[in-house]
């Protein structure tokens, strides 16, 4: 046990850190190096008698009920503390919908009566795990890959790049290739696809892709055991599952393009520093070989056409965060939440007086004080 964990025990009530991802939810205490639990973001719905995903909702009421159920599961099955009178640190993407944020705030403040909530965006939280002032965070999540430049603790909002290149894209591509290889409509469950991806797939290097061509006959195939007979995962499926991330055909919407676009939209004096402080993280980045491939693609692309003249960065350097890739944002939240002792948390009584959250997209909160539209 490290020194600070001991201090956290003396502290009256340790805050909890919540990272409600699309696929997995990370939940634990501030000041600890790893979350207490990483569980799928779903709960058993007694009404429908099936597992229901938190992010599958049609109305605000449904989302409210989903969040109540999910938090109940987290608090009373995994972390085993009373939610009442305890602070919460929420780690979320900068592009989280207002509906989701406000419903989550309502659930936390009104339903669970927590004493305060701090909102941290995942980009700054990821950057906090490094301790470096300028970081380019490439976060590959379940649905989207987000590229955010964090310069001295401020995310450069106008340069945010977000592409639908998350784990879901990989899963769809893998499922399609498996169907083709087996000449059948397999209709594999998402958990099986994920398992095949995690255990067999990899990202080949740039040269290897060119060498292999479209066939990949030299890549070993794998027999994946299933209850209804083994499934052949061909070498092509293993090697090319992650190819959509690097596919430039769709109007240059590939991951390396997003990274370079983000750097290009940033202030000119930060561009070189950003390129030399790249952090590739998120659960999707844990695929073997992905980081090396991204580095290689970046170095190649920067000398190519749209960037050749506008972007003059010579070097790309990469960080590795002191945690597993899938919990990076959570660990950042645990660090930030422990450092300020919850001073920055929005207190409950303030929310009760005025149930509104601060948001970067809202002009009420980010109009400069000397602007004539500013209202105090």
């Amino acid at each position: 046990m490290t020194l600070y964990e001991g201090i956290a025990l003396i502290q009256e009530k340790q805050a909890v850190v919540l990272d409600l991802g699309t696929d997995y939810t990370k939940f634990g205490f501030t000041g600890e190096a790893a979350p207490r639990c990483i569980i799928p973001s779903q709960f058993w719905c007694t009404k429908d008698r099936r597992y229901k995903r938190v992010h599958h909702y049609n109305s605000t009421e449904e989302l409210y009920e989903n969040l109540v159920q999910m938090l109940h599961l987290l608090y009373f099955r995994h972390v085993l503390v009373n939610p009442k009178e305890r602070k919460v640190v929420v780690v979320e993407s900068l592009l989280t919908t207002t509906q989701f944020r406000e419903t989550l705030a309502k659930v936390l403040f009104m339903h669970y009566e927590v004493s305060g909530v701090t909102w941290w965006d995942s980009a700054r939280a990821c950057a906090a795990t490094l301790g470096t002032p300028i970081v380019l965070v490439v976060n590959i999540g379940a649905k989207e890959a987000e590229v955010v430049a964090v310069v001295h603790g401020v995310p450069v909002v106008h340069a945010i790049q977000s592409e639908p290149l998350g784990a879901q894209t990989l899963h769809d591509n893998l499922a399609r290739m498996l169907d083709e290889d087996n000449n059948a409509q397999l209709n594999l469950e998402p958990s099986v696809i994920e398992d095949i991806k995690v255990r067999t797939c990899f990202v080949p290097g740039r040269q290897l892709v060119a060498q292999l061509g479209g066939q990949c006959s030299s890549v070993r195939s794998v027999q994946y055991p299933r209850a209804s007979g083994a499934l052949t995962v061909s070498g092509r499926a293993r090697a090319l599952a992650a190819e959509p991330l690097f596919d430039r055909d769709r109007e240059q919407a590939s991951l390396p393009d997003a990274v370079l676009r983000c750097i290009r939209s940033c202030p000119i004096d930060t561009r070189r520093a950003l390129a030399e402080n790249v952090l590739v993280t998120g659960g999707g980045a844990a695929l073997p070989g992905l980081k090396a491939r991204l580095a290689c693609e970046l170095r190649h692309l920067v000398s190519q056409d749209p960037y050749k003249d506008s972007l003059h960065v010579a070097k790309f350097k990469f960080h590795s965060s002191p945690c597993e890739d899938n919990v990076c944002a959570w660990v950042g939240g645990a660090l930030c939440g422990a450092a300020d002792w919850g001073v920055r948390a929005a207190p409950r009584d303030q929310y009760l007086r005025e149930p509104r959250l601060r948001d970067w997209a809202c002009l009420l909160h980010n109009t400069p004080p000397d602007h004539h539209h500013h209202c105090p």
Partner: protein
Amino acid sequence: MAYLIQPDYVQYFCTCGQIKPITNLYFCRHCLKVRCGFCICHEVDSHYCANCLENMPSSEARLKKNRCSSCFDCPSCFHTLSTRATYAPARQDPAAGDAKVENKQPKKMYYLSCFNCRWTSRDVGIPDQPVASGGWPERTNPFANRFGQLLEYFKAIAQQEKQDKLDKERKKYAIRGKYITLTDKTGLTGAMARTTAGLPSSESSSSAIANFVPSQAKEEVEELPEDYHTKEVNLKLITTMPQRLASPEWQAQLVSRLQPIARPLSVKRSQRCRRCDHNLTKPEYNPGSIKFKIELLAYYHVPEVKIISFETIKPGCTTELLLKLTNPTAHEMQISIIQPDEVPEVEEKEEPKSIEKSLEKSLNLEKDTSWRQVIERKPLLPTTIKLHKPELSFTLAQRDDAAEYDDDSHHETNDIILWRKSNKLALRLKVTTDEEAKVGSPAVAILALQYSYRNTVPPTANSPQTRDHVLYTTVAIHLGTVTQ
């Protein structure tokens, strides 16, 4: 009527608007209202290990990170691990000769084994232990050291920010005297103030900042080995996602790196009514006991409705429905069946204002009722099936366990009450289905019960209570689907 695996045919409306089977509802004896898991406050009562049924005080549970110290789960299949004993082979010592070995008792050694998937702690090279429980090697998070450094750094920054803010404020209001005192000049007061406030001196926080080494970016990224793609993949050696996520600190990717998982504790929960803060349930402390100290379940207080039988629901037809009503309380109950819209709106309002009341209120903390606006909602009642209200109210005898053995005296019966037996009776009701009811849609009849309830809470001095109340409950009865 609630089943474990079948759908719930009879559901009750909670005060907050949720529709649930009676087994999932609570009844607050102090507000005389039905409550459910959604609108009450849950609290952690006590921690225990579900495997060894050992209690753990919450402070100890917090120290042990909510894990049992003697039980382990299999990292491969998550089944509970069992401790197996073996006799360690007596070590052959070539120098001592054979004679000495015979005298030695063979030593008992223990290892962990999973009876479900046959995983053992020997598979991953954990040495056998000389004691049966505990003593297993503990692993620390490989990143704990760096995490500690980062935390120290951020805390120092936060500290410095706070200090700067304080200094700024002090400067603003400092009244400059004519003469510079010696203490001001040497900065002694600042240091003294810091020590009296118990804050670390400014030097230590700045040294934490100065000594911190930010993460160094590297140009080369670890690449896969050249022959990675031609190597055979043995899926038996690679862990699955659930296996990795079961221990968030390590997330072992290879089966050979799996470690036994200390079993997570469970909690007993107590429930509290949000409105009056009285306990609805409180479990017994003993983990082996499934009894409650306080148990205000709706099942013991609200008349229970069961379906005996019903005719198929057809659009535009009047069909019959047989119900059984049970009185679970120890008092006679006067019940009448009414239409759901006849249930009076009972607003949970404050008492009429009076000077004494507001004086009393000013003493106490104001009760926070903000949760009501988000939790309570009006349920949508389906109106396609109309109930014919029987012009009848009837008494239901109290529950009497001894009455089961008595020969039942014959009660008078009529077309509505088919039979009576101690605290139960059967009813024949008529329902009319709307002409426009869609074929294939679920048929749900709504009926409301008005029943008398005797409150057994001893009246307190400041809240004189009446003993007899008239309460209402609304029930949704699922009658299959509308058929042609």
